[in-house]
């Protein structure tokens, strides 16, 4: 009698039961809090999803429509799933979970779930998105403050969470390092949590062009620093799955 892979998978691989804590299980679901709608960050996120897909990970991008901007409306590039969720945290979490199950059932998958940072105050509602949190930060005071607030909110509610930072909008690696270390220092001192660095993204004319044209940098400008940066960050993320 023919059987589905799902029927026999438990013989070969550990199975996540319903009682598995999503905060401590290593799931390739990355929660990305946005303090406010931001077209640049949305475009970076979309390009990152495309790059992850290009690196052979089935990738889904999940975000509230309000955050997504124009970039998130475009789906289908290199098989990236884009899901705009108009309802609240519960629906977004559900959508992200379903995407994760669907993608990982067929192999390597990655879900990038963007959500408003204000939702971090809602505790359990977005808890499944906190297990692996990635913050995009620019080296300016308000961005650093918002990033620190998001990271600290997660660290205080979920001490086991993986906390990561990707820096963008810098003029030098020194600036990027300073930015990262500034956040890491605060986190280590206040919560004893370490911060994982997920590289640097380049916010340049190629990014602007990708927003306007809807063509991802990895395809339109594959040999530019912006594309190299996306590849680097995607590699770091997929390497930590």
């Amino acid at each position, binding site marked *: 009698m023919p059987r589905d892979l799902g029927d026999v998978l438990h013989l070969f691989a550990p199975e996540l039961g319903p009682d598995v804590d999503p905060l401590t299980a290593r799931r390739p679901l990355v929660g990305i809090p946005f303090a406010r709608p931001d077209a640049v960050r949305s475009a970076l996120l979309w390009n990152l999803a495309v790059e992850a897909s290009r690196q052979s990970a089935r990738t889904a991008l999940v975000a509230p429509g309000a955050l997504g901007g124009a970039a998130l409306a475009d789906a289908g590039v290199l098989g990236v799933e884009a899901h705009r969720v108009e309802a609240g945290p519960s629906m977004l979490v559900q959508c992200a979970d379903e995407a994760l199950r669907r993608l990982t059932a067929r192999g390597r998958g990655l879900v990038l779930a963007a959500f408003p940072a204000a939702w971090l105050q809602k505790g359990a509602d977005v808890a499944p998105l906190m297990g692996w949190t990635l913050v995009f930060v620019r080296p300016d005071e308000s961005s650093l403050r918002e990033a620190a607030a998001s990271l600290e909110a997660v660290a205080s509610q979920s001490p086991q969470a993986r906390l990561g930072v990707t820096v963008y909008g810098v*003029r030098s*690696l020194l600036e990027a*390092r300073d930015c990262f*270390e500034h956040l890491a220092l605060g*986190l280590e001192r206040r919560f004893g949590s370490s911060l994982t660095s*997920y590289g640097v993204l380049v916010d340049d004319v190629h990014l602007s062009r990708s927003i306007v044209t809807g063509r991802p940098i990895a395809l339109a400008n594959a040999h530019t*620093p912006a594309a*190299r940066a996306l590849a680097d960050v995607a*590699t770091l993320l997929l390497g930590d799955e």
Partner: protein
Amino acid sequence: MSEAEAGRAALRRALAPRLGRLGTPLELIAEDVVGEEDATIDWIAASSDGAAWVVLVEPLAAEHELLVRALAQRAWVAARVADWCKLAPSLSLRSEIEPRLLLVAREFDRMLRIAAREASADPIRLARWSGDAEQPDLELLEPLPRVRRPAPALPPAAPRALASVFRTGLTEADLTG
């Protein structure tokens, strides 16, 4: 005897009494000693502290090979001083003192002067002769000063020891280009 040989002989004759006026009185105890590889040592001398001296003369500008020869001859002499002391106690040589080197030439280039300074703890003496070969002026060259290495920079203060490590595969050129 060729003209060159004659000139060299005249120079050596004129140098012999002047060697002891270079700051260290020297007593010449042997001349034209056949040393390592049958090469000739112009003089073996002794200073008042009992050190043996190997003196080599080059009538022209010194080639770097002179230094090689001098080091080899010093080793040759060092191996024999103890025997010489037994055979001729009157020489008042002390075998426990490493023989010293004095090289005489018309000129020494900078490379050779640095090598002479660095070859051993006791710098090799270099004397430059000038003027007439039969009445040469002899000048002891001071060892070239060492260029002081800048003090190693102290490691930057580490006011914060982070467990978190910044990572990126980018280079500065990626951001500035």
